């Protein structure tokens, strides 16, 4: 099967064996999904968000299911940089695929400090800048929605990367996502990932209260997929294609067909998120499905698929 079709991609200076990557926050720190699939079959791994200090996260309820989707407001609960370095980085080193650490913080200095500490770790291929988590007060979302701040934080973190790849994760909660995409690229982003979740609310009509303790949460899952496909297509067309900056597309991918839509829209890689909660081996199935799609359509090199959307 493999061999006839080249599904490897160049992604911001990192070569991925295939375009399928785990989306941050849905696959743990390292090998948690290893019991359900062979992680080496993935194109890459993106960790959950790491912050300088450990974070307890939000009170519960932290999630609620909606039609074809779910809202989460975890609040970036994580073990913090030091424990991550001690306990998880050695595990990541053994994964055998490119690893990208998702980094979050409350100030530019915190982001830069985390990246600086991790830049020397050989196991880490690059970073994903989370400036778009909608569930943290004073946190990422303010960075991600203002082009000036996107530029500032991207430049500061890029300078701390030690030459490693930096991908900026964009929020869809803006008027024009191309504006923030452009800001990230101008400040030195090697790649973009989009989209993060949409700020949303579910109300308990018996109590007339929001279901989530955080009141609002980020909507993910198949419900957002057509919007995410549109936004990837828009950023690709308006900004990324000409700049030569690759996109990691994500938002509700459950199947290989979903992933292929994102690639036709302009994504060089795709992130599997919410689907992993339901089918922990989903990412591997998507890899297999992309391969057979390419074979079926006589595509010898997957690069021919990326951004191949017809004018229609």
């Amino acid at each position, binding site marked *: 099967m493999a061999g006839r079709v080249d599904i490897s991609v160049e992604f911001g200076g990192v070569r991925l064996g295939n375009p399928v990557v785990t989306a941050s*926050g849905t696959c*743990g720190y390292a090998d948690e999904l290893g019991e359900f699939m062979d992680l080496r079959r993935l194109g890459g791994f993106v960790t959950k968000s790491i912050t300088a200090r450990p974070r307890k996260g*939000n009170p519960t309820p932290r999630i609620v299911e909606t*039609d074809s989707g779910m809202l*989460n407001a975890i609040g970036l609960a994580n073990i913090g940089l030091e424990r991550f370095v001690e306990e998880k980085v050695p595990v990541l080193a053994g994964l055998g695929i490119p690893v990208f650490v998702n980094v979050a913080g409350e100030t530019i200095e915190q982001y830069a400090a985390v990246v600086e500490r991790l830049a020397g770790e050989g196991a880490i291929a690059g970073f994903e800048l989370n400036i778009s988590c909608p569930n943290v007060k004073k946190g990422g979302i303010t960075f991600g929605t203002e082009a000036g701040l996107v530029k500032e934080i991207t430049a500061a973190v890029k300078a701390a990367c030690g030459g490693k790849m930096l991908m900026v994760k964009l929020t869809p909660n803006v008027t024009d996502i191309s504006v923030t995409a452009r800001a990230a690229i101008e400040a030195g982003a090697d790649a973009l990932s989009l989209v993060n979740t949409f700020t949303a609310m579910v109300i308990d009509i018996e109590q007339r209260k929001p279901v989530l303790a955080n009141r609002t949460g980020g909507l993910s899952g198949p419900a957002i997929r057509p919007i995410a496909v549109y936004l990837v297509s828009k950023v690709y067309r308006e900004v990324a294609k000409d700049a030569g900056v690759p996109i990691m597309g994500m938002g509700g991918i459950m199947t290989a067909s979903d992933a292929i839509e994102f690639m036709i829209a302009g994504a060089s890689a795709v992130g599997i998120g919410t689907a992993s909660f339901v089918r922990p081996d989903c990412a591997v199935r998507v890899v297999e499905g992309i391969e057979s799609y390419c074979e079926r359509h006589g595509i010898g090199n997957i690069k021919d698929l990326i951004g191949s959307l017809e004018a229609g």
Partner: protein
Amino acid sequence: MADNGTSSGKGQFDAAVRENRLIGERFYKLKLEFFGEGAEAFEGFRPGQFAQVDISGTALPPADSIPDELRDSAGRDVLLRRPFSFTDVTSDRGRTWAELLYCVVGPSTLRMTTLQAGDSLSVIGPLGNGFWVPEGKKTALLVAGGMGSPPVQCLAKMLAKDYPEITPTAFAGAKRAGDLPFEGRMDEVSREIGFVLKEFGRHGIESIVATDDGSAGFKGLVTDCMVQWLTGNSAPRKEMIIYACGPEAMLAKAAAIARERGIDCQVSMERRMACGTGICQSCAVECRVEGSSETVYKLCCKDGPVFDAREVVFSDRE
């Protein structure tokens, strides 16, 4: 013999539906069969552990058989798996059967009513940590509130089988008779302790039923019923243990009763969860840290669902 209530070898398996039987107003018993690696994994299932069942591909029943109160929400799309504990797990020569007791409360459990013998379901498990048995226990109080009964039923069997030195007594509570997830006419059961519920009686375990409205058994909270029993029982508190599963308010009361009397208590917690495997971090349970006023969030799916009651900061939000 003490054990820690865990098992190894979780995975994603296909299970075959063997039976799906209505046992009360809204309660069903679903019998699943596992084969091969799945049979092996679930043979190690411990009472209080759980499994994540994918219902997303299961059909809705015909419109005229949907209860009025669910009509509005019945068509809601199901994305996430649903966590269930089992009432009973048995194994024989490479095959394992698990019995899942469910109550029709929403779009997923409504869909489950259409499952038929021969259907296949994707099941992830066994997940989490079950009940454990500390050394030196001779009396166990099994406290089940409403749909908290499945893991308690499973535990009853294990205690009867593996711990002859322990005498369990079961306390089953609900708002009203129709909310008791047991077979038989609940409105006709005795108010006294005895072989009231056959789910416990078959293991030689006495039980008593309590309902808030008195429509079955003792009138009042199941925890009040338990206090009454404790008042009339002089066995050393150190040799007792309370195992509880049910609504959080009930667990909080059971924990308080246990603490006041110096009785060990384990509670099986419930939280909204997406993955069930410790990744999504949704199912946080606030826990005390020994020797500190700070609390931490542990995960219901991975650190629990069974916790030592002293550890848990009970919440009124879930």
